[in-house]
């Protein structure tokens, strides 16, 4: 068995302890994000109207937040390996820009239909991905460069469309661009299924991913078909990003920092980092959404603002302590 960086073998008791703490932490986040809102509701004792609010309004929204956060974090982890760059995140190749442009284009045609906007976002995301695919064979660095340039292009297209968009469409366009969990047309079972599927695919690829981290040559020497792996990764990460963006708009930060945070906590083995990211990203977005609903209640804040405000201090603190 090859020697891999940052393994946890030989530390089983500590691992158990950590597992227990994490489970407790997850339960706490779940309880908090369900209970928080305009009024604190105890999820265990709510009845009548409170129960209606809890299970028909807060719960579906939290499931959406969990799935979207998890998908974004997974996509971030994959892009970081794929591009060999710690600054990579789901939107680095311009997918957020093309999805936003698609969404706004949909709004221009049908200002009343949230569904058309979602379809526009999905089509836009895939259009962006297709453009990047053209450069996939040039290797990670050139692909990254192409992606960044494409991102600038999509940003320009978006600005053009926004300038032409009638006033009535602007509210929805801006809410969507800052991340909007309040209204989503995506069926929740579909999102959860996608979350599970993405995680399963990730786990299947996790050993190859670990080897790719050692460098392309090493990975090839160890029997990994690097070219194919890259294609699979690009497709997988892009599909997941497109889905997350379509469901909830563009929510920044999670895809960049959650994978790093999980590496700081669990080492760099992907069979740990990927599930941890899928869960951790989901939990962070749940918590951020709870804060967005509660801080200036009964009014609401855009959730994209809060993901960074909660996540950045945690990440920086861990970075300082580990170095």
């Amino acid at each position, binding site marked *: 068995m090859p020697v891999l960086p940052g393994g946890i073998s030989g530390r089983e008791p500590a691992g158990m302890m950590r597992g227990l703490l994490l489970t407790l932490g997850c339960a706490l986040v779940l309880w908090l994000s369900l209970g928080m*809102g*305009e*009024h604190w509701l105890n999820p265990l004792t709510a009845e009548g*109207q409170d129960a*209606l*609010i809890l299970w028909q*309004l*807060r719960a579906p929204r939290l499931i959406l937040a969990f799935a979207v956060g998890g998908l974004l974090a997974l996509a971030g982890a994959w892009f970081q390996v794929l591009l060999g760059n710690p600054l990579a995140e789901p939107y680095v190749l311009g997918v957020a820009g093309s999805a936003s442009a698609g969404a706004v284009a949909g709004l221009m045609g049908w*200002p*009343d239909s*949230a569904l058309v906007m979602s379809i526009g976002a999905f089509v836009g995301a895939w259009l962006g991905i297709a453009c990047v695919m053209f450069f996939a064979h040039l290797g990670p660095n050139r692909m990254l460069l192409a992606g960044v340039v494409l991102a600038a292009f999509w940003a320009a297209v978006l600005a053009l469309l926004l300038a032409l968009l009638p*006033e*009535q469409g602007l*509210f*929805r366009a801006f*809410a969507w661009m800052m991340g*909007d969990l*309040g*209204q989503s047309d995506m069926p929740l079972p579909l999102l959860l299924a996608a979350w599970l599927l993405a995680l399963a695919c990730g786990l299947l690829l996790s050993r190859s991913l670990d080897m790719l981290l050692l460098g392309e040559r090493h990975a090839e020497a160890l029997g990994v078909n690097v070219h194919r792996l890259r294609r699979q990764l690009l497709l997988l990460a892009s599909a997941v990003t497109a889905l997350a963006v379509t469901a909830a708009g563009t929510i920044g930060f999670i895809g960049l920092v959650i994978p790093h945070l999980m590496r700081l906590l669990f080492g760099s083995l992907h069979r740990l980092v990927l599930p941890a990211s899928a869960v951790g990203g989901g939990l962070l977005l749940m918590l951020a959404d709870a804060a967005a*609903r509660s801080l*200036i*209640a*009964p*009014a*609401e*804040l*855009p959730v994209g603002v809060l993901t960074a405000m909660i996540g950045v201090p945690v990440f920086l603190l861990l970075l300082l302590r580990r170095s």
Partner: protein
Amino acid sequence: MRAWLLGILLLTAVPVQAADRVLALAPHVCEMLYAIDAGAAVAGVVDYCDFPAAVQRKPHVGNYRRINVEAALRLHPQVAVVLSRQIPGVTRLEHMGVRIVTSDPRSFEEIFHDLLMLGELTNHRRQAEALVQQQRMRLQQIRQQAADNVRVFYELWPDPLMTAGGKSFIHSLIELGGGHNVFGDIALESPHVNVEAVLRAEPELIIIPLERRRLTDRKRFWQHWLGPSVRFAAIDPDLLHRPGPRLIEGLEQLQQALLAVRSAKELK
């Protein structure tokens, strides 16, 4: 000393030449000018000026984001009435010798003030005074029959769900009509809220500005959450969102809806 004072008095009393080429660069300004019979003085408008119908034939010189200075100057305006000096193009227009007047009324008193100001500007003072007089009487009547504390939710926008906060003009209209804006405590102009907050606020009346949006869909949506007893009123948003001469009409419609809720309560 006396002669000096007299001189000043005479100087200020010399009537300023009435403007007959005015750029009306906000929808409510167009409506005001037409309401005081000064429609002929309107030289140019912006894209969102659509009332009365005659205004649509006037040349357009910009939209709510920007004034096209060249197009504006081509109309040889003497005065431009704008919402704010911050709109790109306005200061440029001023440098080119066009007199800039701002009109952004935030209350009925300010609307009346601006109507009189425009009357003065276009030499339609008599018409403006008559209109203000008549509107004051209607406002007085509204104050006299104010409904008592009907709980109102104003659905400013359905997706994202937005309402009128305590700093909005709409909020003051609701209170004027005798309603209680359930989100009046939020010190913002148009806050985002969620369904949960509306549910908790227990509104008796939901006002939906009918803006290309399907009333039946919104009714079904809110009845799903709030039960069948909640009442609805659809009001043309142009009547409520434009601080112009038709605002009083919007307020009257709003009050009719409030009174209907009250009498339904009394019947019970």
